[in-house]
């Protein structure tokens, strides 16, 4: 009995001592920034470089003196291409780590998974990837392209410049290609294309047996009218697809393929010979000849210590989004999400083509649109671009259901899903 009491006393003393000796919990004197990108799993090939980009941007900002007098601290988590895990990690970042903003997500399914978490906990998510639209949340800032900033201009280029008359819409089977193709089909039909001249095809992630599909595309394209493929194929299924096109002798000058999810990063790991001449539509190419772009690439190569690493469109989106967030926080004088949401509307930050991007009331930004041809070294040569910046449209004007919907987070409407016909604001439509 006495020994037990002595043990208890010893334990209590140790505990008290450790608490007294431990550094006092003081209020955080760093501002935490969350990075929510897959570092393993099937999306790792695209997302790892975005984590590195964010670390570089945070590092650069800290060199300039940080934000509001405090240093920025990166909190990196790995949701491992697992969509439910994205939501868990988002909750962890917001509740436990108390980050001021999160930069992350790639696939639309990952974004849809974290959306309820951000709306519940009033967090801020900066989403850098091109997507299908049909969404505008108070808590998300879409720095990637909406369909009217990528898909529609690409189709316009094919129709007007390349005189394409027959269309193959090929995509991976999930929400982004399905919704984008819905919009494109409606757009093509509105432009007078017959449904016989449109072929739509979906394949699972990672599909590698393209023989019959490419043979069908060849047959579809040999009916005497110029045919093009609009590809929303995501991930590494692109590699065997382009290889099969090469094997079956379908060259870019016969049936050009314009891709929305193939960028410098995806091209850097593969043999680009069969892809030369095929097209991609983005808002930024590493080959853009602007001083700010050269500067960015130099900083990137110095940071990542590898002169062979490439830059791509989602990296530019993070660059714009981060600078916009910094400006908004500085303007508001606080990192409080509600204040930042108000302050960020109308904020302008430079993009890497030499212009300025502006944060619009629907939480999208203005972007230039570029079409580029794939070169042998995995870079893109711009063959067409818009004269001016295109403002992002969250609710597509080509679908009857979303034509009448407007998003405006300023005090005017303060709604992301406002029906202009019934004059009602409804909750987030997911």
């Amino acid at each position, binding site marked *: 009995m006495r020994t037990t009491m002595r043990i208890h006393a010893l334990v209590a003393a140790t505990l008290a001592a450790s608490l007294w000796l431990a550094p006092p919990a003081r209020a955080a004197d760093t501002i935490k920034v969350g990075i929510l990108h897959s*570092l*393993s*799993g*099937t999306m*790792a*090939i695209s997302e*790892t470089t975005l984590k590195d980009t964010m670390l570089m941007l945070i590092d650069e900002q800290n060199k300039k003196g940080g934000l509001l007098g405090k240093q920025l601290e990166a909190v990196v988590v790995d949701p491992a291409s697992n969509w439910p895990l994205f939501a868990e990690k988002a909750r962890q970042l917001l509740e436990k780590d108390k980050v001021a903003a999160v930069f992350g997500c790639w696939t639309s399914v990952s974004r849809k998974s974290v959306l309820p978490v951000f709306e519940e906990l009033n967090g801020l998510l900066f989403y850098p990837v091109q997507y299908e639209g049909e969404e505008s949340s108070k808590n998300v800032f879409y720095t990637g392209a909406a369909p009217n900033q990528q898909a529609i201009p690409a189709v316009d280029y094919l129709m007007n410049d*390349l005189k394409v008359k027959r269309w193959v819409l090929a995509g991976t*089977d999930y929400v982004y290609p399905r919704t984008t193709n819905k919009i494109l089909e409606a757009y093509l039909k509105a432009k007078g294309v017959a449904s016989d001249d449109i072929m739509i*095809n*979906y*394949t*699972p992630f*990672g*599909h*590698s*047996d393209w*023989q*019959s*599909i490419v*043979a*069908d595309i060849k*047959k579809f394209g*040999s*009916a*005497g009218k110029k045919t093009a493929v609009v590809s929303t194929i995501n991930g*590494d299924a692109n*590699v*065997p697809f382009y*290889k*099969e096109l*090469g*094997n*079956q*002798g379908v*060259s*870019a*000058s*016969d049936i*050009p393929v314009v891709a929305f999810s193939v960028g410098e990063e995806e091209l850097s*790991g*593969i*043999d680009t010979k069969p892809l*030369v*001449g095929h097209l991609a539509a983005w808002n930024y190419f590493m080959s853009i000849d602007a001083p700010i772009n050269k500067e960015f690439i130099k900083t990137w190569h110095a940071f990542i210590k590898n002169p062979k690493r490439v830059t791509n469109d989602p990296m530019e989106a993070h660059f714009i989004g981060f600078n916009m967030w910094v400006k908004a926080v500085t303007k508001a004088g606080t990192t409080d999400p509600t204040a930042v949401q108000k302050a960020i509307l109308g904020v302008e930050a430079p993009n890497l083509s030499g212009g300025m991007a502006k944060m619009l009331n629907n939480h999208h930004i203005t972007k230039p649109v570029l079409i580029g*041809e794939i*070169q*042998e070294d995995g870079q893109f*040569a711009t*063959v067409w671009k818009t004269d001016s910046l295109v403002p992002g449209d969250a609710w597509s004007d080509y679908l009857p259901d979303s034509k009448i919907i407007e998003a405006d987070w300023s005090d005017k409407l303060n709604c992301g899903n406002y029906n202009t016909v019934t004059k009602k604001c409804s909750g987030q439509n997911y």
Partner: protein
Amino acid sequence: MGVQFRSLVIACAMVFEMLHASAPGWADAGALAAGLAGLRSSDFQVRARSIEQIAESGEAQAYAALSALLDGRLYVRQGDEAVVIGSEGSSGFAAVDALTGADLGTADKVDFKKVVINNQMRGALRIALARLSLHAPDASARRDAVDSLFGSLSSETIDLVREALTSERDEGVRRAMQTALALADIASPDRDDRRRAVETLSHSLHAEARTRLAGLLETDAEGKTRERDPEVVQAAASALEHIDRMRAMYGVVETVFFGLSLGFVLVLAGTGLAITFGVMGVINMAHGELMMLGAYATWLVQEAMPGHLEVSLFAAIPFAFVVSALAGIAIERGVVSFLYGRPLETLLATFGVSLVLQQGVRTIFSPLNRAVATPAWMSGQLVVNGALAINYNRLYIIVFSIAVFLALVALLRFTRMGLQVRAVAQNRAMARAMGVRAGWIDAVTFGLGSGVAGLAGVALSQLTNVGPNLGQSYIVDSFMVVVFGGVGNLWGTLVGGLSLGIANKFLEPYAGAVLAKILVLIFIILFIQRRPRGLFPQRGRAAEA
């Protein structure tokens, strides 16, 4: 390399000399020089016009220059702005003057800037080169040239083809040229010309022929066909019907080939599993990762022999077999042998091993995919006719799969080791009583099955992405094949794999890739309800036990 390249350029020049000698044109060195100078411009339109200029110059060097431009081998030298054809060899960057063909020796690549082309230029280049190739010495080159002109028959091209036909002796090329002329004659004002053209086109399986014939029969707003003469209309209709029948038949052949190629890949993936699962009763969830190891082994071999891409696959085959076999033996000795007779634990344990292997590869190499190149002899297609073309890579993989399968059957049937493997599988206790070292045979069997998985990985490296997730994409298919074909029976695996492949490919055009797979899976589930042991079940007392 430099010497080889130079002789190639000379050969091209000689080709053109022959054309130049036989063609009634006149050589314009000035036009060639002007065209080459135009290629230096930064305006794509100017460059496109330069291609025309070069092609029409009639100079001997024109073909070589245009061909180099298409291949991305035409450069402008900094400083004197000379246009050269360059090639990278082991001794450096060899340059040849595009205008004169003179050898300029080797130089530093940095001094040269490549002439960039876009898609419109590529299209124009192909047509120009095809027209220049109409008089090439090689018959198949002439044939390819005519075929590639089918879609772009301008009046100048027609004249060139007509003129070339007069001196053409090769039957195949003559037929192709006559088809090309018929395609043009379809629009002729003379009725007999059109009738003859329809007659010629009815024997052609080329897509362009069908398009033109269908165009004749297109009805306008009043229901009248574009072609007014009833005889021609009737001839066109029956020609179209004949062509469609032939194309449908070749379409079936093509689908069967696709099905066989998919099926043989499944057979290759499933055979290794059939051995470990069938012979030993071990459910090896790491089988997919053993295939992945084989694919990575192929990549390593390619990295190790950078200049020898053509033979790298032959070196990769034994290397991948050994790597995967050793990994398999390690798994058997380290994990499976302790769990013999406990299938559920084996399943869990091998699943764990598969995760370890996946993450190991991610850590050692990188989570990104590895680029495995396809040798030139495996790229491209074997064109049988206008409606049927067979990919070389699929063809060789079918041959490879058959060879591996037969080798395995021979090994099990005719060798002593195969005899011991079969003995242990049929009746372990009796085999041990006969002096067979059962434990050692277990390891060998597992190694054999894993080695075959490695060979499957070599084949897959040519078809799909090589990354840490490669195994996951094929493990379900492998089990499907083994379960459907009958556990423990190699012939069952063969029949099972081929039928699943063909069924999948026949369903795909109607149901789409995703639904086709689902339907095949449902079919297998229903089949297993009726025949739980698969198509060719094992028989005998040991199997029933």
